[in-house]
């Protein structure tokens, strides 16, 4: 059995003073891509925020088998990288400078970026198809390009767990598939990735396991190959059909 990298046991999460996630339990194992699906307002993003202490919660969260409370900000940042749903880049920094900020948890107060850091940043820019953009100003890039830069920053953080809130929302199909492939590659070295997603087909194709959330609680949690039309219909309140096609499955809302 692969080790559990992140676990939530009976976790409820608050958005401000309002409880929006109720009594959720899940775990993520090493080598696993985990997709969190559900309609708007079902509590997916708030749930993920609780994993990086951006939302108040009740219940136990353990990261790398340690209670979340035992982590400092820096050690938590070394264990879990997070990309928010809305990426805010208001300063016209160079792309390379933004990606390198992912190394912040790893460098000392007076330290500077090493050659290893620079090579890692360049490698990750290449991974997301942004080679040649190093000196471009990030505020001049398209939404999709900014999203790829922020994914490169998360990869550069080099954490054991990656938590991405809708990482493909601004990407075209080519780069959506590319990002999911990057995540599959990322988890090969014993790491894990959790994606909040709206694209059910990407989740079915690339995730190992899927959790379906509705009204603040997890309704179903299973392997992606076990997701059926009735589960999707129940969670999204529209009928779904799943078709087998060329060894994979395609889900269609009807």
């Amino acid at each position: 059995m692969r080790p559990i990298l992140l676990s939530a046991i009976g976790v409820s999460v608050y958005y401000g003073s309002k409880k929006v996630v109720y009594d959720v339990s899940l775990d993520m194992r090493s080598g696993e891509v985990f997709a969190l699906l559900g309609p708007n307002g079902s509590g997916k993003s708030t749930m993920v925020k609780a994993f990086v202490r951006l939302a108040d919660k009740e219940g136990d969260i353990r990261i790398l088998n340690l209670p979340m409370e035992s982590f400092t900000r820096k050690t938590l940042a070394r264990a879990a990288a997070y990309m928010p749903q809305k990426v805010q880049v208001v300063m016209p920094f160079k792309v390379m400078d933004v990606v390198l900020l992912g190394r912040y948890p790893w460098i000392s107060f007076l330290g500077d970026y090493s050659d290893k850091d620079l090579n890692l940043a360049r490698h990750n820019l290449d991974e997301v198809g942004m080679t040649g953009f190093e000196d471009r100003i990030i505020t001049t890039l398209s939404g999709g390009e900014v999203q790829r830069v922020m994914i490169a920053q998360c990869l550069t953080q080099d954490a054991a767990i990656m938590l991405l809130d809708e990482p493909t929302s601004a990407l075209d199909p080519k780069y959506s598939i590319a990002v999911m492939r990057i995540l599959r590659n990322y988890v090969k070295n014993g790491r894990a990735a959790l994606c909040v997603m709206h694209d059910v087909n990407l989740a079915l194709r690339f995730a190992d396991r899927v959790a379906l959330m509705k009204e603040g609680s997890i309704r179903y949690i299973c392997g992606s190959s076990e997701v059926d039309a009735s589960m999707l219909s129940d969670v999204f309140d529209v009928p779904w059909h799943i078709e087998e096609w060329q060894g994979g499955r395609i889900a269609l809302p009807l």
Partner: protein
Amino acid sequence: MLFVAVSLFLAFVSACLSLAVGEVRIPLPEVANIILGKVGFPSSGAGASGVYDTILLFVRLPRTLMVFFVGSVLGVTGAVYQGLLLNPLAESYTLGVASGAALGATIAIAFNVNLVRLFAFLGGALTLLGVWALSHRSRSVDPTRLILSGVVVGSILQALMMLLQTLFPEKLGAFFFWVMGSFNSASWRWLPGCLIASCIALLFLLLHRELDIISLGEGKAETLGMNIVRMRWVLLLAASLITSVVVSYCGVIGFVGLIVPHLLRMMVGHSHGRLLFASWMGGGLMLLWADVTARAIGSLPVGVLTALVGGPIFCLFLWKS
């Protein structure tokens, strides 16, 4: 490295001009002669004058150094406020800190308290605390709220200052110094305070990465391992305190903190690693040039010149951007 070399060269040339220009013009060879003589090099002695010597060593040299240090503080704090509050209009005046310092000095002058500089410093520090208290909400501080609080508090403080000026018309001359900013009282006595403030401004370079991260938003900053609430507080407090220190020596000098970082971003980019040092050097140089010009055209308050020159430059910048 090229930027540092060019900056040092400009600083040297500007310092020489500052030492030479004034009501009594001292020829540049005489300036070099006196300075070299004082630092141990053999001087020619030709044309050396006791008057020049006194003016240079007891008036111009402390003034030149003080102007540079004050300018460097205003330049760096402008860049810090703008990066911290994610607002291109932010500077020490936006948060009311400079107005608070000027009001503190005005109160001391009005009521004949012989602690003008201490009152100015306390005025700036207390203003920051008030603005922070007004804008603080639960775990975080909203930059927009902070700026709004600063603008409102600054307006109230300026109104109070005008009230005091109306109630004590016989002290208008002394009040004028604080409102317009001036280096006429510069002396070796005030230099250590300005030097320390300028050195603290340089220390902001150590936090350049933190300033970059703040611009990514609170959530991203926290998950990269930074305590953003504490960092904002540290940066604001340090920037406001050193602003209060320099305002307590030279009064309110506007536009340096606003213009310098903007102009330098066009040259060195937005990353704070390069911008903070450039603003330190650029702020010092800009204020030095303003002070030299003010003296050359007849002892104008330097704050008037920075506003007269800085305002149109900023308008040009806005028009071109």
